[in-house]
C-alpha cells in the first residue's frame, strides 16, 4: 500500500489550489479519502474519536440493501421467464437476466447522482458527502425494471439537485431523495410506473408473452377489485409468495424476507431506528385492522397483515422511513412519525385505489410533517424544563 500512497502523494499537488486540476479537488479528495482514511487529527475538544464515520455507516446500509437487490435481480429474471412461458429457467439464468437488466439502471443512477454530488461539492468547496452511496442504490430498487434509462437519469438529477443540493446537500434535505426520484417519474411519466404491464421485463413490448398473462401485482389486484366493487382475484399466489417475493413489483421491493434480512443488519448495527421501523409496521397493521372493522368493500376485508407484505410497504418501512435526515429527529417523534407513515400508507391504498402504492406518498408526506412533530416534542421539553424550575422554587 505504500506504493499507492506515494503515488497519491505525488499527484496530490495537481489538485490543490493553484494546481493543474484544481477544479477536480473535491473529486480527488473523495477518491483519496475512499482509499485512505486521512491523517487528520483532532484539534479542539476530544482528543480521541470513535472510529465510526459516515462512510462506514453508508456502506453498512448498502450491505443491508444487498439481499433485497440480489433477490430482485433473480426475481426480474424469474418473472420474465414466467411471462414468456419458460417456467423451467434455472436460477443462474434468472439471475443473469436480472443482472443484465438491472445493472444499467444502477450504473446510470450512480453516475448521474455522484456526478452532480462531485460538482456541487466542488462549487461549495466541501468534501463529497457519502449520502448518495445509499440513495444511488435505493433509486434503482424502487424502479420498475423496464423503466427507460434516460428517465432514471432525469429523475436522479431532479432528486439530487432539487431534492438535496438546493437545501445544502446531505443532512439538509427535507425529502428522501430516492423517493423523490420515484415520485418524479410517477407524476411526470405516469404510464411508465403504474398499471399492470410495467412490472415485468418485456411485458410492455409484448413479444413472446404467453397468452392471457396479466403481470398484475397483489396491489393492483386489490386496487382494481376496489374500483369495480367486486371480489379480489389474487393472480400472484398467496401471502407466502408475497413474503418470499416471487411476484412482480419494483426491482427491490418484492421480497419481504430479503428486506427483513437487511432490517436485521440495520437494527443490529443500530444504524436504523427500531422505533421508526416497528411503528411503521404497527401503524400499517392497526390501520388494516380498523378497515376490517369497517369492512365496506373487499379491499377493506383482507387480513391486515397482507398490507405489510404487499407492494413497497416493507421496503419503505425498513429503508426509506428510517432515513435519519428526512425523518423525525426526536425519539418520541420517531414513534409518531413511523406510526403515521404506516397507517397513512394503508389508508391511501384502500381509500384511493387510483394510487395503488400508498407507501411512497405516505413517506413523502410524513417527511414534510416530521419537523412539525419534532417542533412539538421539543416544545414539550422546553415547557417541562420551565415547569421544573417553578417546582424547584
Amino acid at each position: 500500500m505504500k506504493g499507492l500512497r506515494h503515488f497519491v502523494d505525488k499527484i496530490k499537488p495537481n489538485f490543490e489550489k493553484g494546481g493543474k486540476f484544481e477544479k477536480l479537488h473535491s473529486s480527488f479528495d473523495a477518491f483519496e479519502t475512499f482509499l485512505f482514511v486521512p491523517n487528520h487529527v483532532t484539534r479542539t475538544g476530544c482528543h480521541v474519536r470513535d472510529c465510526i464515520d459516515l462512510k462506514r455507516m453508508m456502506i453498512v446500509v448498502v450491505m443491508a440493501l444487498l439481499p433485497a437487490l440480489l433477490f430482485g435481480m433473480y426475481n426480474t429474471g424469474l418473472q420474465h421467464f414466467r411471462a414468456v412461458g419458460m417456467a423451467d429457467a434455472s436460477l443462474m439464468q434468472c439471475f443473469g437476466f436480472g443482472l443484465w437488466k438491472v445493472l444499467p439502471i444502477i450504473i446510470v443512477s450512480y453516475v448521474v447522482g455522484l456526478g452532480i454530488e462531485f460538482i456541487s461539492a466542488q462549487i461549495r468547496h466541501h468534501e463529497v458527502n457519502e449520502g448518495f452511496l445509499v440513495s444511488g442504490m435505493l433509486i434503482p430498487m424502487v424502479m420498475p425494471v423496464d423503466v427507460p434509462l434516460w428517465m432514471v437519469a432525469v429523475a436522479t438529477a431532479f432528486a439530487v439537485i432539487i431534492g438535496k443540493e438546493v437545501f445544502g446537500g446531505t443532512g439538509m434535505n427535507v425529502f428522501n431523495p430516492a423517493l423523490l426520484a420515484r415520485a418524479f417519474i410517477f407524476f411526470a411519466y405516469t404510464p411508465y410506473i403504474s398499471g399492470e404491464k410495467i412490472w415485468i421485463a418485456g411485458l410492455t413490448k409484448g413479444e413472446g408473452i404467453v397468452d392471457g398473462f396479466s403481470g398484475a401485482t397483489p396491489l393492483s389486484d386489490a386496487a382494481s377489485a376496489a374500483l369495480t366493487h367486486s371480489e379480489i382475484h389474487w393472480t400472484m399466489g398467496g401471502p407466502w409468495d408475497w413474503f418470499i417475493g416471487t411476484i412482480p413489483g419494483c426491482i427491490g421491493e418484492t421480497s419481504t424476507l430479503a428486506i427483513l434480512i437487511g432490517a436485521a443488519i440495520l437494527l443490529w448495527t443500530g444504524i436504523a431506528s427500531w422505533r421508526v421501523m416497528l411503528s411503521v409496521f404497527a401503524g400499517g397493521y392497526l390501520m388494516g385492522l380498523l378497515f376490517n372493522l369497517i369492512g365496506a368493500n373487499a379491499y377493506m376485508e383482507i387480513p391486515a397483515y397482507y398490507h405489510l407484505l404487499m407492494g413497497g410497504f416493507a421496503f419503505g418501512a425498513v429503508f426509506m422511513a428510517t432515513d435519519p435526515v428526512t425523518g423525525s429527529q426526536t425519539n418520541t417523534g420517531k414513534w409518531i412519525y413511523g406510526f403515521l407513515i404506516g397507517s397513512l400508507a394503508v389508508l391511501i391504498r384502500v381509500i384511493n385505489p387510483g394510487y395503488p402504492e400508498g407507501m411512497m406518498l405516505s413517506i413523502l408526506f410524513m417527511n414534510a410533517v416530521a419537523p412539525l412533530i419534532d417542533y412539538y416534542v421539543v416544545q414539550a421539553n422546553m415547557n417541562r424544563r420551565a415547569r421544573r424550575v417553578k417546582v424547584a422554587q
Partner: protein
Amino acid sequence: MSQVIKLKKGLDIKLQGEARKELTQLPLVHAYALTPDDFKGVTPKLLVRVDDVVKAGSPLFYDKYHPQVLFTSPVSGKVSAINRGEKRKILSVVVTPEAEQVYETFDVPALAKATSSEVTELLLKAGLWPMILQRPYGIIANPEQAPKAIFVSGFDSAPLAPDFNFVLAEEAESLNAGFAALAKLTEGKVYLGIEAGSQGVLNQIQGVEIRQFEGPHPSGNVGVQIHHVCPIAKGETVWTVDVQQVAVIGRLFLHGRVEMQKIIALTGSETKVPHYFNVMAGCPISSIVRQADLRPQTDGGTVRVINGNVLTGKRVDQKEGFLGFYNDQITVIPEGDRYEFLGWGMPRLNKFSVSRSYFSWLMPGKRYRLDTNLNGGVRAYVVTGLYDKYLPMDIYPLYLIKAILAGDIDKMEQLGIYEVIEEDLALCEFVDPSKTEMQSIIRQGIDLMIKELN
C-alpha cells in the same frame, strides 16, 4: 447513608494506561508558571515585572474586568519570564523558585464565626478565588453574586481519571476546613457528589449534603450532578469547585498561607509507568513527562501530551508547557497523523467504537490504545437519536447545538445552555460520526450568551 442517583446514559471509554496507586514526590524544579489561558474569559493585567521577587501567594496578575480577582504565585522566588504570543498576548508568567520557600501570610478569620464577605475577601486576596467556578457558563464566579448552592464532585468518571479517595487520603482536615469555608459563601447547601459504593476520605466529610451517583461517565461531571439535584434556571447560579482545590482552600484557612501542592495522575497508553505525582501547581510538564518514561514510537510517530483527560483536556507542549490550573491529570497518547488504507472498511479490532458495525461490543473488557486520528471527515449532521444516549440530562443535544449555530438566544436558553459546559457534551462529540466539534460550539454559544446578556 444517602440516596443513590442512578444514571443510565453515558459511556466509559476503556483506555490503556491507568495510573497505579504509587506516589512520586517531585522536588522543586526550575520554574513554575501561571497560564492565563487556563482561565476562561479572563483578560490578564500584570502586577509584576521580570526580576521582581515574589512570595508564594503574591499576586502576579489580575482580571481586567474583575480587578478584585487576583492570580497569585504558587511558589516564592523571582519572576524569570513573561512569555507573550501574537498581539503581545500573555501566554505565561514564570517564576523561578528559591530553595527556601517564603509565604505571604494572611489573617484568617475563625471559621466558626466568619462572615461570607470575610471568606470572600480572603479567597480573593490569596488568589484562590479562581478555583470557584460558576454555572451557567463555567467561568470564574462573580464574587458579588450569591449562589443558590455550591457543588463539588468527589469523583472523576472520565477515561483514566485519578481516584480522589487516593489523591486526598491525607487531606481529611483540609477538606473539612475547605468545605466549612465554602458553606459560608451560600445561603443554600453545599453538595458533595460521590461515586456510589466508594469508601474513603470523602465519605467522612462533615457539614455537606452527600449525594451518591451510579453509572458511566459523565456521572462524575458536576454539571450532570447539578442537573439531577438542583437544576439551574435562568437567573440562578450554582458555584462549583474541583475537590482537590477544596483542600487547598482548606489549607489556607488552617495555616494562613497559600500551599499549592497537589497530586496529579500521569496516565495514558504511552507512559511506561502511569502513576501519581505530588507536585506544586504550575509545574513544567517536562518535569512530569520525561522522554525516558515514554514508550518509544515506531515509524517516526509522535505523542500528544494532554493537560487533563482525553475527552476535555487541552493539548500542551511537552517541553515548554505547564500543568493546567484546574487539571488533576496528564494523559499521553499517540498522535494519529497517518493514513489508513481503506480504513472505513476494515474490522479495526484495535479501535474502539460504540457502533456495532465494529467489534468493540464483543470485547467489553478490552482496554484500547487510541490515537488522535479523526477517523473520518467532517460532515453535516446526519444521524439522530445517537447523541441523546450520551448526555444524561433532560436536554436535546442536537437541538441545542443547532440553536447555537443559528445564534438563537431564546432557544438556547430554553434548550438548556445554562446547564451545560463543554465537558458535558464531550461524549456526544466522541461518538459523532459527522466529526463536528461540539465542545467548541458549546463554548461559542456560552460566549454569545455572555456577550448578549451582559
